[in-house]
């Protein structure tokens, strides 16, 4: 199929770009290491991004799941947080409310964007939540009218789920320790 062949070409370039010039604060423990990337793993990518400094998410490491649809880049990637996070635009299932993750006219996805720019945008969303377009009613209200309560809840969530003990060892361990609580939360 022509689309599949075209998708593989683009994904190979994108992954190379992600490894050589990763977006700020992002890393790909699953990709790094082995240089030859088999095409079977192209449809889903695990990323992790550091919580931006001087925010309530600072020092947290958030695991992100990126699923590449068959029609990519004519369709946006679907991106979710695997690590629970308290954020006005990210719900308990990890779904992210970000315009570039939807097709126009509702959203702003363009094939000129790529995984790297999407992760950069998510990093910016952590620094600058958008409570006027909130997915989480409660968190949005708090963020706007009771910032102290919001900050406290977000910090404790970061502490609880996004930090791998006091001595954050290898990145692989971080993922493993974080997978379980998120599963539990999703079930709830």
């Amino acid at each position, binding site marked *: 199929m*022509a689309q599949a062949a075209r998708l593989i*070409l*683009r994904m190979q370039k994108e992954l190379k770009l992600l490894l050589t010039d990763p977006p700020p604060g992002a890393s790909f423990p699953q990709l790094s290491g082995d240089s030859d990337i088999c095409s079977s793993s192209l449809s889903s990518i695990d990323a992790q991004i550091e919580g931006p400094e001087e925010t309530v998410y600072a020092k947290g490491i958030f695991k992100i799941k990126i699923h590449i649809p068959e029609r990519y880049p*004519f369709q946006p990637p679907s991106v979710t947080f695997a690590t629970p996070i308290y954020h006005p635009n990210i719900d308990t299932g990890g779904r992210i409310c970000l315009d570039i993750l939807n*097709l126009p006219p509702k959203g702003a996805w*363009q*094939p*000129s964007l790529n995984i790297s720019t999407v992760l950069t945008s998510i990093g910016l969303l952590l620094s600058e939540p958008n409570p006027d377009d909130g997915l989480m009613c409660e968190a949005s209200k708090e963020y706007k009218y009771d910032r102290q309560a919001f900050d406290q809840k977000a910090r404790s969530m970061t502490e609880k789920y996004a930090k791998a003990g006091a001595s954050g060892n290898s990145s692989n361990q971080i993922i493993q320790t974080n997978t379980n609580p998120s599963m539990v939360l999703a079930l709830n």
Partner: protein
Amino acid sequence: MNISLECTEKVRCREVDLSSSFCRSVYSEIEEVGWEHLVKLDHDLMILSFRILDKKGRAHIMEIELEKAYPRCPPSISADVPYTFNLEWSVNSRLKHVVQQFQEHLEKLQEFWCTLDNIDKSLWVVYPKEPSRATSCREINLGNDCFIMLSINVNDPRSLPECRFMGSDPIVNSLRKKWTRNSKRWVKDKSLVENLDSALETSLPGPPDVHKNEQQVECGICYAQFLPIDEELGAKSGSGTDYTCENTSCSRAFHSVCLRDWLRSITTTRQSFNVLFGNCPYCSDPVAVKISDTRK
């Protein structure tokens, strides 16, 4: 009172007389050159411009400024030439003599301009962007971020030019070595471009238009230069980018197939007959792609 008035009146009459005779003589002198050559004439006839073609058909503009005492004192001349000529002038000289001498001067410069035209045509000149006929310098891109500044000898354009290299030290040093080693073998019966090639022991890159096609060829949507080889794409299988955004500050290249597939993915695209109208994914300027009749 009356006397003084009469006096000024007389002076003015004489001035008018003088100026009308001045006009008549200038007009007749222009006539001799040919009105078709005149491109500018200011209202008091003091500044005239003539357009003169040389033997190779290059157009040159010569501006002549007449003095108040013309034709007793010679006019001054300016033109886009590397150096001007000494005007030979006598009381009997006329504008046609100026033009004649200018043409003779142009003849002397033919070899110089041929050399420079050849450089501009076959090499990648980075400076000056739009060289005037007077400049004898050219900065040429040698590739690898190295440049050579040549200044061509006006009177002996095919001789070894003065030069200066610019770029990273190791490359420039090796170029300089080649230049000094090969400069003895510079021969005047070869063109300057040929001599340059052999002096630097390479084939110098051509003008950037040729290069543009080689760069910026990856499709902004599939990130590849060539489409995959696939029956489904029909004639487009394996082809390179064939659409460029018309916005000159964007100029992104695409495969029309990829752009069409994107425009079909979104509901804001408009279709009229077999043309899809949408926006460039990079700069949002309008784009239009024909739906080719490859099978779906």
